């Protein structure tokens, strides 16, 4: 982890209300699942740094990217970022997605603001020759990001209304496949999707690693603010330091 100055290389709308931000990276090499916190505005409002997962890292060019959704004050400001603008970055933070258990095929699911980290993971596992199945879910075709999809994986797009790719949710799609025994499931995205993935993994007795989100202040493990309940004696773990990727079986699913 390091705090460093970064310059925006580009920021463009890649789907409705979703933006791809590419920027220079001076910190230690980030891995899939890790995140950063940033500030690119002055003053007290918004106040806290905001966390975002990385969606790619180019070691040769020393540049990284993230995909963000315009949601509130901070992400609205971020939509105005232009080439050459400065950002204050703290990263890489948190842990990484674990490698797939030996002999298991990675099945990676993502959607919404979880798209970035799963693209990064799918790319890394493809490069390692593991030929992951990547299943991305969106509301409709307007939300499907126009970004570079990783080569070397089987990629499936799902939309709720069928306006692009398969009709239905990511979980509907996974349940329609009969060749997923022996998978290691990965996921990042809306809670119903992660819960569905967890249930599928439990039925199949397969490992399941999910990346989750909680409001953060320090982002480095010092404040205990980002705690989430877990099925362990200590009752809570910190998303920023103990996660953001967890074995789905230790999380409390409601």
């Amino acid at each position, binding site marked *: 982890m390091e705090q460093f100055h970064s310059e925006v290389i580009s920021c463009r709308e890649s789907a409705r209300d979703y933006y791809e931000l590419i920027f220079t990276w001076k910190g230690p090499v980030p891995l899939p699942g890790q995140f950063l916190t940033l500030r690119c505005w002055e003053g*007290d409002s918004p*106040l*806290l740094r905001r966390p975002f997962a990385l969606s790619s890292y180019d070691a040769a060019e020393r540049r990284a990217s993230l995909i963000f959704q315009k949601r509130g004050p901070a992400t609205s400001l971020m939509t105005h970022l232009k080439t050459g603008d400065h950002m204050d970055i703290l990263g890489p933070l948190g842990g990484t997605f674990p490698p797939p258990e030996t002999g298991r095929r990675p099945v990676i699911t993502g959607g919404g603001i979880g798209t970035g980290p799963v693209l990064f993971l799918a790319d890394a596992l493809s490069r390692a020759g593991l030929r992951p199945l990547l299943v991305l879910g969106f509301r409709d075709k307007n939300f499907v990001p126009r970004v570079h999809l990783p080569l070397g994986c089987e990629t499936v797009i799902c939309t709720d209304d069928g306006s692009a790719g398969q009709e239905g949710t990511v979980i509907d799609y996974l349940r329609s496949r009969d060749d997923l025994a022996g998978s290691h499931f990965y996921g990042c995205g809306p809670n119903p999707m992660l819960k569905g993935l967890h249930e599928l993994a439990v039925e199949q007795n397969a490992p399941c690693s999910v990346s989750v989100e*909680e409001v953060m202040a*320090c982002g*480095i493990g*010092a*404040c*205990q603010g980002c705690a989430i309940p877990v099925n362990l004696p200590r009752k*809570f773990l910190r998303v920023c330091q103990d996660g953001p990727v967890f074995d789905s079986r230790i999380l409390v699913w409601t």
Partner: protein
Amino acid sequence: MDLTVTIGSGTLPNPVGVASGTFGFGEEYGRLIDLSRLGAVYAKALTLEHRPGNDTPRMVETPSGMLNSIGLANPGWERFRVEKAPFLRDMACPAVLNIGGKKESDYLELVEKCEELDCHWGYEINISCPNVKAGGLAFGTDTHQVESLTKKLRPLTKKPLIMKLTPNVTDIGEIAKAAEAGGADAVSAINTLKGMVIDTKKRRPVIPAGTAGLSGAAVRPVGVACVYRIAQCVSLPIIGLGGIFTADHAIQYLLAGASAVQVGTALFVDPRIPLQVLEGIEAYMDANGFTSLKDFHGHF
């Protein structure tokens, strides 16, 4: 220029510390900033037993501030002794242990236990905790409880004893007087203000506990006014905090009567802020011919 601050039997190298609960036990931020330049690390609240902490979510951003309801989450004395104390002992700046409890005897027992260790410079007693024996009313809201607790703690240690005051009272000056009467070496103020944010879609408070602690820039004028009031009431050194983001904010606290300051929530915005605040105080003293922190006092 003399930047040292004397509190009871101890001296801090400079007036800028980091506030309890925002800096853990020092390890995490120690990887980002040079701890040897800090006046002190006020560690996360410590309690006798392990506290898992409050239900989640524990935080929400508010206008120029934030609410938190961490619930004094900490590993408890036993794990603190093994896992955290060695780092504090070897740390390049003084460590102040922030002590919490549910009843008087918790505080006394914990301070006695801490006396066995050599990891710390002094104590900051967090009296914003609810007292189970007083119907959950915070220790720090009642002059009798504050004086009684301070009196009982005093003989247990020769180290500096700082009572950390809550602003959720009618007159913080009266509470400071009680701490002084009990034998405290200093008071720190302010802890968080009570606040609430309601989710109008779900029709319930965002933080499950309902109310939570407000901190950050939004509370700064309240903190400065509290320090000013305390300075009129007691002759103890005062450690001012609440919403300090720049040297100018820290200087407001010093001019109001504080002898030292702490930076809390601002760390979440930029971990370098405490060191920038220290540099700014030095520059201000230099520009105005101040030779010691006492020169900040008595201007109005």
